[in-house]
């Protein structure tokens, strides 16, 4: 344990925390995106999926047990990820008290993602809060009577999603947030391999490619849903 705390006290240790918690969040957003795509199999499939999630890990875990464990782990990961991000940002901000009067970036434009990590992270954080208030609790973004709370044993998740995305402002916000997520994942995934000491000259191109593919699949998979609703490909059941 002392070893882990010694590690955490270094700047690299804080990056390791971000990489490990980032990997957890990454696994989650991928599986979550994949689950979301069940909307294309119709209302029954998506609503059943929502119900079955409550029985995740059956028969070892009881009703909602594993789900709650997952929620606690994810919340812990988000808190640790952001705490380290804030600590490292403060360390970086104090490292150059007087800025350059001429600042030139030498890196190619595709490295743009690396410059969006901090503000993009803030966007993601705000998105996570909005997303929970919206699809989980139904307290924002709906007219009265549209949202059916899935915690009551009745699963109308399909209609909840369609009603939600029928509001174009909400859809645009989701799409923008998913672009931010894509950029974050593109740089974050490669950064994770670097932080964990897995990357080197021979494999870094492959790892960057993997990061790009992961970012594209997750962002486009999620973005397709509000677009499908707005264009009428998917309608109320």
């Amino acid at each position, binding site marked *: 344990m002392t070893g882990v705390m010694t590690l955490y006290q270094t700047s690299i240790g804080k990056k390791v925390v971000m990489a490990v918690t980032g990997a957890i969040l990454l696994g989650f957003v991928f599986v979550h995106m994949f689950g979301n795509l069940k909307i294309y199999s119709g209302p029954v499939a998506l609503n059943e999926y929502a119900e079955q999630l409550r029985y995740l890990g059956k028969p070892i875990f009881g009703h909602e047990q594993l789900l709650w464990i997952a929620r606690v782990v994810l919340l812990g990961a988000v808190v640790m990820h952001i705490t380290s991000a804030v600590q490292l940002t403060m360390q970086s901000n104090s490292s150059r008290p007087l800025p350059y*009067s001429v600042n030139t970036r030498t890196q190619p434009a595709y490295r743009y993602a690396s*410059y969006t990590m901090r503000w993009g992270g803030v966007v993601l954080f705000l998105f996570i809060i909005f997303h929970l208030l919206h699809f989980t609790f139904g307290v924002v973004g709906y007219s009265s009577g549209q949202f059916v709370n899935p915690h009551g044993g009745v699963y109308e998740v399909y209609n909840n999603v369609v009603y939600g995305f029928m509001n174009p402002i909400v859809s645009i916000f989701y799409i923008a947030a998913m672009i931010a997520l894509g950029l974050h994942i593109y740089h974050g995934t490669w950064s994770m391999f670097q932080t964990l000491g897995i990357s080197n000259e021979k494999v870094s191109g492959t790892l960057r490619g993997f990061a790009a593919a992961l970012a594209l699949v997750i962002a486009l998979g999620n973005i397709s849903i509000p677009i499908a609703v707005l264009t009428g490909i998917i309608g109320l059941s």
Partner: protein
Amino acid sequence: MDLRLRIWRQKNKNTTGKLVTYELPGISPDMSFLEMLDVLNERLIEQGEEPVAFDHDCREGICGMCGLVINGVAHGPEVTTTCQLHMRHFKDGDTITIEPWRAKAFPILKDLVVDRSAFDRIIQAGGYISVSTGGTPDANAILISKESADAAMDAAACIGCGACVAACPNGSAMLFTGAKIAHLSHLPQGQPERYDRVRNMVQAMDAEGFGGCTNYGECAAVCPKEIKLDVIARMNGDLIKSTFLSSGTRKMGPNATRNGK
């Protein structure tokens, strides 16, 4: 060619400086960047003004003293040291802004001269191997694979110029520290102290007030010795392993003690 220079002038460590503009006509494109500054200084001295202080020593790209940020790029538009940069990379009529390395850990001493002793303290924390003196070891007594020798040599090329820190938006010293750690971590002679070394050097690096790394890659893009980001990944991996392979903070050297005892 005729140039307009905007140069950071600062009296000493305790005052703040500012950019001062100088007109400098009649510069040959064959001059090196430092020769161009020499010409400026000769003219300033003739006019009875204080010459611009800038660091330099070997003027052949090996000592690492000559760091300047030129138009926002450490060591200027070519991937080399400032002393090896030539005026043919600029055009007649150009305005060139020249600033010192800017980092809390590199205090400005005067004009363009910064104090890079923070790097020396990182090296003192572990950038060496401990050998007891004795007879000269036999050549080739320790076998080293070609891959390891090449990787170690690539990392050992670092001249400690500090361009990586100057270029990094985080003001991070990870490329320098990573190069020093990777150099010894690739060699058999570096193995006995490998994990104490990485822990001590990373702690020393943080203590100097450098920023953390977010993998922008600006450091490797300006490094005159083309040190690769690989060295940072290796340092990260070694530090993580050190957490599981040796516990406590142990100083290095023949009288090494654990936890300061």
